[in-house]
């Protein structure tokens, strides 16, 4: 099955940066109510505004291979980058996942996230792939970071659990 790329299975079996760590400025708990998948996710930032650097994303996730792999990709692609870059990566992931298969994803922007391109053809699984990313945007908002100068639209702000 082309949905389950080797990279996805790799990430889901050995999720990068998994586990909950200190320090952190915000912690959130998100649930996918249709399947019961859960993720607890912490964010540690350094600096302020869009140029703040995401020093750590730590998480404890219970979910399918798609949601676990996607959260692993999130940590891999976002840790060490600025918040502005993280939001661009999020926008690119979301665009690919909601494209119904039209957008293959750009490896330069989302790295191993391109392996999740096949998810877009299965609308029921898009929520799985976005679980960790939504938790991340929610956590980001809860750090109190000022993002007024970015295009962080309500759509990308994530939903609270």
């Amino acid at each position, binding site marked *: 099955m082309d949905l*389950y790329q080797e990279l996805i299975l790799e990430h889901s*079996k050995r999720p990068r940066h998994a586990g909950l760590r200190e320090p952190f400025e915000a912690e959130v708990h998100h649930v996918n109510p249709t*399947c019961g998948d859960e993720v607890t996710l912490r964010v540690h930032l350094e600096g302020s505004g869009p140029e703040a650097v995401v020093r750590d994303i730590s998480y404890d996730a219970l*979910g399918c*291979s*798609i949601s676990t792999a996607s959260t692993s990709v999130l940590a891999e692609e976002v840790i060490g980058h600025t918040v502005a870059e993280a939001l661009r990566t999020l926008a690119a992931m979301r665009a690919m996942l909601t494209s119904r298969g039209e957008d293959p994803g750009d490896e330069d922007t989302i790295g191993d996230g391109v392996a999740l391109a096949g998810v877009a053809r299965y609308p029921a699984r898009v929520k799985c792939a976005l679980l960790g990313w939504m938790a991340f945007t929610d956590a980001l908002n809860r750090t109190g970071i000022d993002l007024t100068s970015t295009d962080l639209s309500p759509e990308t702000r994530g939903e609270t659990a």
Partner: protein
Amino acid sequence: MTAAPFSAGESARIRAEFPILSRTVRGGKPLVYLDSGATSHRVSRALDAERAFAEEANAAVHRGAHQLSEEATDRFEGARARVASFVGAQADEVVFTKNATESLNLAAYAFSNSVAGQPKDPRLDLREGDEVLVTEMEHHANLVPWQELARRTGATLRWIPVTDQGRLDLDGLDGLLTERTKVLAFTHVSNVLGTVNPVRELADAARAVGALTVLDACQGAPHLPLDVQDLGVDLAAFSGHKMFGPTGVGVLWGRRELLEQMPPFITGGSMIETVRMEGSTYAAPPQRFEAGSPNSMQAVGLGAAIDYLDELGMDRIAAHDHVLTEALLAGLAERPWVRVVGPTDTVDRVGAVSFVADEVHAHDVGQVLDDAGIAVRVGHHCAWPLHRRFRATATARASFAAYNTLDEVEALLTALDRVPAVFGVAS
């Protein structure tokens, strides 16, 4: 079991009554539909009856002095009588609702509306110190309304636990079902485990302490003969779309004497006796519980679906289901990397079989099956507490209807065997 399962020829004729079963999915694969526990397919004659109602007799029921209204009312009330005879009841004991969830909420609101000062019967007077008893295997539809009832009234919610084998643990029943219990709400058949509960035994025990009983009959109605008199409960809810009928129609059956005492739930037109600016009095059941324009067309469709179930014979449907369940359980037992959540024998059990595969999430199992054209349900199936009880985040569930075949059970098992390879886990 004396009735025979359906022969290959009969199965072919049954399947021909459900046109959707001949379509293909996922690039030309034949559809193997094993998700009837969530929603069953519509039998053609149910759709025909709905269409005929709309094209030949459409009018507001129970009003209007014209011929169409008379004919519409006849078909609608004919459907009510049909539903009643299917469950061994009288027509005026059958309330049409939107779905079983509404039926169960109607029942729960009878208690809190009584407390709020509607005409009350002591059996419906629920207060602090009183108890509502449910089970750990309930669908959210027969759990959350009772949680809310307890919250509104100050009553305490208690529940009968489930054993590791997926049966109700009745050892402690005497301590749970007491003179404080005002209502026992439980499912006939677990939508996850497939377990058939001892309804009569529980209903008798409840009556002995003066508690009313509310049965969620959704999963039993399409699988087993259902006679509300034999079952001995006071109220029972089921749903049209799980028994070859349309969505948008559910049923609440209630003992006439109890329905008479129950205050209305949704109010408005069609459910009144007299209306003055100062207040209103209400119609007798079942109209008291059918405010507004009813789902007449869907009710007529359900009546036709029930005709079909009776034509097949509920005892033969049960026998067929038994054969499929036995084959699936035997097949799963040969696969040590699969764990069945629910009874692993076929005693007091129907064809809803939930399982987990070692190290692979149910969503991923479902995806591999879907790739082979096999439709199963994945998730917690609206029974989250039960899944927690079995330490499962989610399960995959195959559920049968009369149109399923042994070949489809084989197809499921064959497709399931791809799971360990796809995810690189031991089989």
